[in-house]
C-alpha cells in the first residue's frame, strides 16, 4: 500500500500496465490506399508521404496493396456507383481492428461534386469512417497528422476487442 504514494513507484506501475496492455498496432500500422474516383490530387499527396521528404516508414508505416494485411484504409475521392461495392469489399476483407481515414474533402463529404448524379457523397455513405482529413488537396502534413490520430483510435478499438466489444462491420 505504501508504494502507491511514491511517484517513482506509480510511474513504474503505469509503465508496467502499459507494456502489458499496450498494443503494437501503433508501432506498425500498415495502410492500404484506394482511389475511389478521386482526381488523383490527394493520391499524389498520399504517395508524397512515402517519399524521402516525409518518409512515413519512420513510423513503421508500409503501403501494402492488400487489404488482408492492412490496418488503415486510406481512401480518397467521393465514391461512385462502380466502386461502392469495391470499397465495401476491401473494407470487409480487412481483419479487425481496422480504421478508415478519408483523405480530401471529396472523401469526407463529396466536396465540389457532392450534388453530382454519380457521386455518393463521401466515403461515410458506404463504410464507417474514423478520421476525416479535409483539404483539396490535403497536405502531407495533415495526412500524417490524420494517420497518427487514426493510430490512437486503432488502439482503442483493439482494447475494445480485447474487452469483447465488437464493432459492427
Amino acid at each position, binding site marked *: 500500500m505504501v508504494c502507491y504514494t511514491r511517484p517513482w513507484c506509480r510511474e513504474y506501475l503505469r509503465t508496467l500496465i502499459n507494456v502489458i496492455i499496450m*498494443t*503494437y*498496432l501503433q*508501432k*506498425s*500500422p500498415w495502410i492500404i490506399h484506394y482511389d475511389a474516383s478521386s482526381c488523383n490530387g490527394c493520391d499524389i499527396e498520399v504517395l508524397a508521404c*512515402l517519399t*524521402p521528404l516525409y*518518409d512515413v*516508414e*519512420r*513510423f*513503421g508505416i*508500409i*503501403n*501494402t*496493396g*492488400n487489404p*488482408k*494485411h492492412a*490496418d488503415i484504409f486510406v481512401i480518397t475521392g467521393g465514391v461512385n456507383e462502380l466502386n461502392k461495392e469495391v470499397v465495401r469489399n476491401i473494407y470487409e*476483407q*480487412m*481483419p*479487425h*481492428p481496422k480504421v478508415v481515414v478519408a483523405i480530401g474533402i471529396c472523401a469526407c463529404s463529396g466536396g465540389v461534386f457532392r450534388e453530382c448524379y454519380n457521386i455518393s457523397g463521401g466515403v461515410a455513405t458506404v463504410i464507417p469512417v474514423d478520421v476525416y482529413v479535409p483539404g483539396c488537396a490535403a497536405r502531407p502534413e495533415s495526412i500524417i497528422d490524420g494517420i497518427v490520430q487514426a493510430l490512437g483510435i486503432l488502439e482503442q478499438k*483493439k482494447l475494445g*476487442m480485447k474487452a469483447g466489444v465488437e464493432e459492427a462491420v
Partner: protein
Amino acid sequence: MNPFIAAGIFIILAPIIGILIAGTDRIITARMQGRVGPPILQPWYDIRKLFEKRQVAVWGAQNFFIFCYLIFMIFSGALFYAGGDILLVIFAFTLAHVFMILGCYVSFSPYAHVGAERELIQLMAVEPMIIITAIGLYQVNGSFYVGDMLNHPGLPVVLLPGALLGFIFILTFKLRKSPFDLASSHHAHQELVKGSTTEFSGYTLAMIELSHLYELIVMLGFVWLFFGDNLILCVIAIIVILFLEILIDNCTSRVRWQDALSSSWFVTLALGAGNIFVLSLM
C-alpha cells in the same frame, strides 16, 4: 556442444538475431534511398502487431499449411545447428517450402496462385546450387555432418570459391531480394499485389515472417560453413555479403522468371558444378 542445447539456442536466438538483421537491412535500404528508415526493432513490432489482428482467410485450411511450414523450418534449422547431415537439412527445407507453396495454392486466388507458381520456379532455381554446395563442402571436409563442418580448422572457401559465389547468387532468391523477388516481396506494390502471401493475414502472416527469419539465419549458417572455425572472418564475410545483397536489391529491378531461372542454372553450372568437378579431379 550438445546438439539439443545447440538446437534450443537456435530456436530462441534466431528470431532475435534475424529481427536485428532485418531491421538493419531496412535502415540501410532507407539510407540508400535518402530516407531515415524505421527503428531497428521494426520487424519485431510488425510480427507482434500481426498477432493482434483477427484471423481472416479464404479457407481456414491454408493456415494449417503455413503452420507446418513454420514447424518444419524450425526443425530444419535446429537440425542444421545441432550438427546433422547437411543433405537431410536441405531436404527438410524443401519439405517446408512445399508446405508453404501448398498453403498458397489452397485459396484459389489469382495472385496467390501465380505467386505459388513463381515460388516453385524459385525452388527449382535454387535447389541445384544448394545441393552442389553441400557436395562441395563434403569434398573439402570429408563428412556430411554440419557439426564437423562448423569445426573445420582450415578455410574451405579457398577450395570452394566458385561454390561461394554461386551460393551468394542464389542467396538473392532465398532472401527475396531484387532482382529475384519474383513471388513475394517486402517492398511495396508489385505486379502481383503481395504475390504468394496475398491471402494470408494475422498470425499466419506472422508465422511466414518468422519462418523467413529462421531461414535467414540458416542461410547465414551455410555461409559460416565456408569459413569453418574462423569466426571473425566469417562475421566479416557475412556483413559484406549482406551489404552486397542490400546494394543489389536497391540497384536492380525484378527480372522475368525465364531470366531468373536460366541465369541461376547457368551460374550453378559454371561456378558451382565447375568448382566441384575440379575438386573431384584433384
